[in-house]
């Protein structure tokens, strides 16, 4: 059963004194999945990962690995490997010794260890650095060393806590792709913590969105993007994220800032709603919502236009350079199907 790696967490509660860091987390991860824990800082992602690793005691709940309850097991008895945000390389050992350490601890034979270390190092392209110490490596090389140490003993579960956050932007993009390929090649289940929604959306098979110690949505990136479960998720996902505007629904008619718009087909009570529209779904048109151009950001292949609609700034994204200038009065329109409707009180999505 080497390398299965099915994860199941049930009702995980974690408290720090009177503060509750996790309010009952339920999570199921399939073998071989690349699963991201996404959420703003302080939402409980690291805590969840550490509970999975066995590094953090929990106040309630159950952790299952491949159908076995491991809640009470020590970290070393779970067959999981972790890449820490700080890498946690052993500074007094060479890269070789660092990578060999997990094998040495289980008494693997010298020759086999040697082969495995070189193999793991080659997979992350640091086989020429084996004699160095972590202090003599660049940030990117240290990160790879931490990766090699994690993959060398072929764990069934691979935990990564913001592994790219200490790299510069360019390296981050490259490593992201490589990490994904590596995980595919190894076929290992990966749980990946990040606060960067773009990173989670591009790298993961599925994503769990954390907010304030709760999972508010789990799904494939495209599904979360297409149907965010709450207005908070909507405002967190996408770059720029979804525009949210207060609106009013009455007798099948939608009004935004007093302007009537073609209403989407939706089952929903009349009354105030929160209307969501992705920046890319907005366009400048002859008729629609009156808006004033606030700022035009040209990003080369795309342009972001900040628009002032009745005192609220919304963002429009377009591939074509729009013929507008700051201060212009324009109208913005969007297709009824592009609308997302949320309950203004609870933030929950209303299905149409």
């Amino acid at each position, binding site marked *: 059963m080497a390398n299965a790696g099915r994860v199941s967490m049930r009702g995980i509660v974690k408290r720090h004194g009177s503060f509750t860091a996790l309010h009952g987390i339920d999570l199921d991860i399939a073998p071989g999945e690349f699963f991201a824990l996404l959420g703003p800082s302080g939402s409980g992602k690291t805590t969840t990962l550490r509970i999975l690793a066995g*590094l953090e005691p929990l106040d309630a709940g159950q952790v299952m690995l491949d159908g076995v309850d491991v809640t009470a097991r020590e970290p*070393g008895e779970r067959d999981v490997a972790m890449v820490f945000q*700080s890498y*946690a390389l052993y500074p007094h050992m060479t890269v070789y010794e660092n990578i060999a*350490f*997990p094998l040495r601890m289980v008494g693997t034979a010298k020759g086999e260890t040697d082969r495995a270390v070189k193999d793991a190092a080659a997979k992350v392209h640091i086989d020429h650095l084996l004699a160095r110490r972590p202090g003599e490596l660049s940030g990117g090389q240290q990160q790879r060393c931490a990766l090699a140490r994690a993959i060398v003993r072929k764990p069934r579960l691979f935990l990564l806590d913001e592994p790219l956050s200490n790299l510069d932007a360019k390296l981050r993009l490259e490593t992201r792709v490589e990490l994904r390929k590596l995980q595919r090649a190894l076929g290992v289940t990966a749980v990946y913590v990040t606060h960067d929604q773009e990173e989670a959306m591009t790298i993961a098979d599925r994503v769990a969105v954390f907010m304030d110690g709760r999972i508010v949505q789990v799904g494939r990136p495209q599904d979360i993007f297409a149907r965010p479960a709450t207005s908070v998720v909507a405002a967190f996902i996408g770059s720029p994220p979804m525009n949210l505007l207060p609106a009013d629904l009455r007798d099948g008619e939608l009004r935004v800032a007093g302007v009537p718009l073609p209403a989407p087909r939706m089952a929903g009570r009349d009354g105030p709603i929160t209307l969501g529209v992705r920046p890319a779904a907005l366009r400048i048109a002859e008729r629609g919502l009156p808006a004033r151009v606030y700022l035009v950001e040209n990003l080369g292949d795309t342009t972001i236009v900040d628009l002032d609609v009745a005192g609220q700034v919304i963002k429009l994204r377009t591939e074509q350079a729009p013929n507008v200038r700051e201060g212009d009065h324009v109208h913005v329109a969007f297709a009824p199907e592009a609308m997302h409707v949320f309950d203004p009180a609870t933030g929950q999505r209303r299905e149409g």
Partner: protein
Amino acid sequence: MTGKRLRTVVLVAIAAVLLAIWAFPVLWALLTSFKTERDVLAYPPTVIFTPTLRNYADVLFGSASLLPNLLSSVIVAGVSTFVTLLLAIPAAYALARLELPAKRASGFYVLATQMLPPVGLIIPYYLVLQKVGMLDTYTGLIVIYLTFSLPFAIWLLVSYFEDIPREMEEAALLDRAGRFRALWYVILPQVRGGIAVTTIFVFLNAWNEFLFAVVLGGNRVRPVTVAMFNYISVEQTLWAKLAAGAMLAMAPVILLGLIAQRHIVKGLTVGAVKGGGRRA
């Protein structure tokens, strides 16, 4: 001359004066140890004289040889250092890592032991050792040394352990090292400097200790610091032999200092920087 150069010159001058003040007695003793007793008493003191190794020969192999006493010092300082570290390392590690309610209190206790004037403890210690029949025994003197060195060593080591991120042993635990091997393979090598500094301080304290040794020791346990006083008697003081004995007693100290100089300086500065910025 620029202000910076002036500063350097002043600093060097101050350092030179301090060094001279510190070095004078040592140099005096060094010179004296090669003189005959007659030359020692010559007035005005001579700097140029015929050096002799007589004193060293006497001190080492004469009727009142210091060799057994040097051995005595080695046993007392060596064993008490070894036992101190054996107990202090795990204790400091536990204190650094565990959330213990008595953490603050134990810190205060250490300070208290270092502030108490040793003289105040001599009589109680004497009486206790006498009751249990351990006066003039190695065990007795070493146990007494431990009461000072152990809290001090723990206190010193805790700050070194606290500097190692927790993720170090968490990584080791995930690598299946278990608690003990995580400490042995991952944590201890990273606090080598702290262990070196602690070893030296504890060893030197025990080696140089005089007061407890003279009162709680005796004929069997007589470290070199005590034995040197054989050369001072009511009728006369044998300065040259005393000096030669002092040089012999100092030799291991200086040797140790030279070997561990790098660690000591680093350890002291690290402690200094941290002490200032540390939260309670």
